[in-house]
């Protein structure tokens, strides 16, 4: 084996109550695209934070280019040639691209010179980007390019990318991969974090798999199947959701030209959305984050009022009704943000069961609360959805993300909705819990409910939806049967590559 660029031996990092990384060792060769695979909570983030100097390891050693490497700060890591593109961007919307890039540099050159450098780099690597544009006007994919170019200007030897494709359309993913391959050809190593196995199969030379903070395997992704890698990640055989074939029934929810202005100045307004969902059917709604997903959920849950006739539920005009009136009719929702939206973090699970269950589960009579019934309802959710918690008296924030998500979805499903709208039902949830949630949604539809799943996970949508539509800048594409849709077609429904189809690597 050639001399490794980065050599990690026995890295260990413990936080109170949890060992995030336990004796982790692996090496990255120069010019290698190395995947770091693992479920949420497997310790991927902690590991890269140690490499990038954000967190100090408790024990273990790192070598970079043959020399001992122990960066006390990200600044030191960058000086050594390690760059990182984070999953969440740190950009100022009110500044232009060049100004944002300059803010991330140690000694920024004058603006005009910098703008020229940005153009050079963006042309060399096939990442078209105008340095004069305001970041606030850019799509998520273009914002990511700003972050990548900011890294590339430092001539990194190792580029760390954390879940880079979660905000991209399939076409944008292709552009990104070409860039990464070009970097690789020039000898830059890439540490690529993802749980999207198909991507890793196409892009990566080598994969290290983490589970519960430990390295549980290494493999060449090209020689493995997505399923075999998933099972290494989870440690058990995966359960694939199943469903029976059934003809859809009556129209339950009918949106006619629903337009809602966003309350948030950086939000996306909904523009003339048409859709019908029938009982027994799952409608999947895809789209890149920030294209109106939150607004659509709020308009359906009743948090944002709409014109009465724009939302029809079983023939009744309900656009003007609030959340509780809609719950009474049988239209339930589960928002994306678990803590602070779907659940109150500091309140107990019993109180959180009451939050949406008060009406349909009859937890209130004459305005007075029936605590024993509310606790019983919370206990039923915990039992039916395998929520891991000592009991319903615990605060919502004490649950892990996946467990709280099971609680939130379970709370709505157990109320037997006629129509359920969920946004990102398995976001941040481990694979086995995600499979359980998807199965529960399929079962709910099989029992005759209409289900709308809004998600950014295309694999998930293809797995469970009967029909598929995409949100793009607040508009919804016409729904199409999910069976037989190609990735290209889906990508075009999601808005393509935002006018970047012509981009080619020079």
């Amino acid at each position: 084996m050639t001399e490794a660029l980065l050599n990690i031996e026995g890295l260990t990092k413990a936080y109170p109550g949890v060992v995030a990384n336990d004796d982790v060792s692996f090496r990255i060769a120069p010019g290698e695209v190395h995947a770091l695979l693992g479920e949420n909570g497997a310790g991927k983030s902690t590991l890269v934070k140690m490499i990038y100097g954000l967190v100090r390891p408790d024990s273990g050693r790192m070598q970079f280019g043959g020399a001992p490497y122990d960066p006390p700060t990200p600044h030191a890591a960058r000086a050594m040639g390690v760059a990182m593109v984070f999953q969440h961007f740190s950009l100022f919307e009110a500044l232009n691209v060049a100004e944002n890039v300059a803010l991330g540099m140690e000694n920024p050159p004058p603006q005009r010179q910098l703008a020229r450098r940005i153009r050079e780099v963006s042309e060399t690597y096939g990442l078209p980007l105008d340095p004069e544009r305001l970041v606030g006007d850019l799509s998520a994919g273009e914002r990511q390019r700003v972050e990548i170019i900011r890294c590339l200007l430092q001539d990194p030897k190792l580029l760390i990318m954390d879940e880079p494709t979660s905000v991209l359309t399939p076409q944008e993913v292709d552009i990104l991969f070409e860039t990464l391959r070009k970097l690789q050809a020039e000898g830059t190593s890439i540490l690529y974090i993802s749980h999207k196995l198909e991507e890793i199969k196409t892009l990566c030379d080598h994969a290290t798999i983490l589970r519960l903070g430990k390295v549980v395997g290494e493999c060449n992704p090209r020689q493995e199947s997505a399923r075999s890698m998933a099972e290494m990640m989870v440690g058990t055989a995966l359960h694939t959701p199943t469903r029976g074939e059934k003809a859809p029934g009556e129209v339950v929810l009918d949106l006619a030209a629903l337009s809602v202005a966003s309350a948030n100045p950086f939000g996306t307004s909904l523009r003339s959305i048409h859709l019908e969902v029938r009982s027994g059917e799952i409608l999947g709604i895809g789209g890149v984050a920030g294209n109106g997903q939150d607004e659509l959920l709020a308009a359906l849950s009743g948090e944002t009022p709409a014109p009465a006739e724009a939302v029809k539920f079983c023939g009744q005009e309900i656009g003007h009704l609030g959340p509780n009136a809609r719950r009474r009719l049988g239209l339930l929702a589960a928002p994306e943000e678990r803590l602070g939206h779907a659940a109150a973090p500091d309140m107990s699970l019993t109180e959180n069961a009451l939050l949406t269950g008060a009406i349909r589960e009859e937890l209130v009579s004459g305005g007075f609360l029936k605590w024993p019934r509310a606790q019983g309802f919370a206990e039923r959710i915990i039992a039916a959805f395998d929520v891991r918690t000592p009991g319903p008296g615990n605060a919502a924030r004490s649950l892990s993300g996946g467990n709280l998500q099971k609680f939130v979805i379970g709370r709505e499903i157990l109320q037997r909705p006629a129509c359920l709208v969920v946004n990102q039902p398995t976001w941040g949830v481990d694979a086995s819990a995600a499979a359980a949630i998807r199965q529960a949604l399929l079962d709910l539809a099989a029992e005759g409910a209409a289900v709308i799943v809004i998600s950014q996970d295309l694999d998930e949508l293809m797995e469970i939806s009967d029909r598929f539509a995409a949100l793009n800048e607040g508009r919804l594409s016409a729904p199409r049967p999910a069976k037989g849709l190609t990735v290209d077609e889906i990508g075009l429904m999601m808005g393509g590559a935002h006018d970047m189809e012509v981009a080619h690597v020079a």
Partner: protein
Amino acid sequence: MIRLEKRPNPSRAVGMMTPVLAVLLTMVAGGILFAALGKNPFVAIKTIFYDPILGEFAFYYRGQLLVKGGPLILIAIGLSLGFRAGIWNIGAEGQYIIGAICGAGVGLAFYPADFWFIFPLMVMAGAAGGFLWAMIPAILKTRFNTNEILVSLLLVYVAEQLLASMSLGLLRNPDGAGFPGSRNLRQYEAAANNELIAGTGMHWGVAAAFVAVILAYILLNRHMLGFQIRLTGESPRAARFGGVKPNLLVVFCLGTSGALAGLAGLFEVAGPAGQISIDFNVGYGFTAIIVAFLGRLHPAGILLAGLLMALTYIGGEAAQATLGLPAAAIQAFQGMLLFFLLAVDVLTNYRIRWAKLETA
């Protein structure tokens, strides 16, 4: 280095302990303050906390405990509802004044008639006055999204001007030889809020305070509206998702706290104070904010905190009289209590870790 670490669950035990710890810390810091003023800190603390209850002249002070504690508790209970929901009524002092003016005005309008319904009518007028005064910030907030903290606070000064104008004009005692101030309601039997049990200080306002404590407890723990108030305070977005109408809550919380403050003003003017005068208000409305927090916004806690705060008032007056402590020192002492309470409050949700420095 000291590090704060978030607790997975808020600690109930620490939550109960923090007020006690805050009182102890206040005694220490207050003692240092008194020592710096050249007084013996131990004597000063004893004069404030011990003498009014068990000292030589305690028979006089004990009644004062309920007289001072009653309005504080009544106002603080109302404020605590809004504070729980993140609706900040800082103007209880103004609502208290307006309640007193309205209540006294109704009573004086009947003078010298003697009907049984005069006092109940005054009670209603007092509550209505406070309610309506609180509706000004409430409606401005729901209509124009103004800040209720500023509006309610500034309305206190408007109310004070109204009070002065009433004592000098409309409500001035016609038989008062031109002195400012209204007739003394205690000398007008049909309108007087007299002691219910002689020597205890127990009057209708104190009874109302106790009833308010019980009702607030039931509201917060057993009723949907109380749940919605707590939910809004914990997490406004989750509350909207849960079907809470934020504007309705603003009106309810400001209205209730205004009505209770108005009641407190009425009971005060018809009882202990006796008359509308320029210096009728003595800051109960502001001190009640401290009481509400000292009682951890919990009805039972507010009951105890109200009595404790009344004690510092009475003891503070005693210390002024016997030790010559300046009034400002007593106010600083009360301020310290709130400061320490908020400081140690952090411990409910965080625990202190003594850890080595970690380079971030």
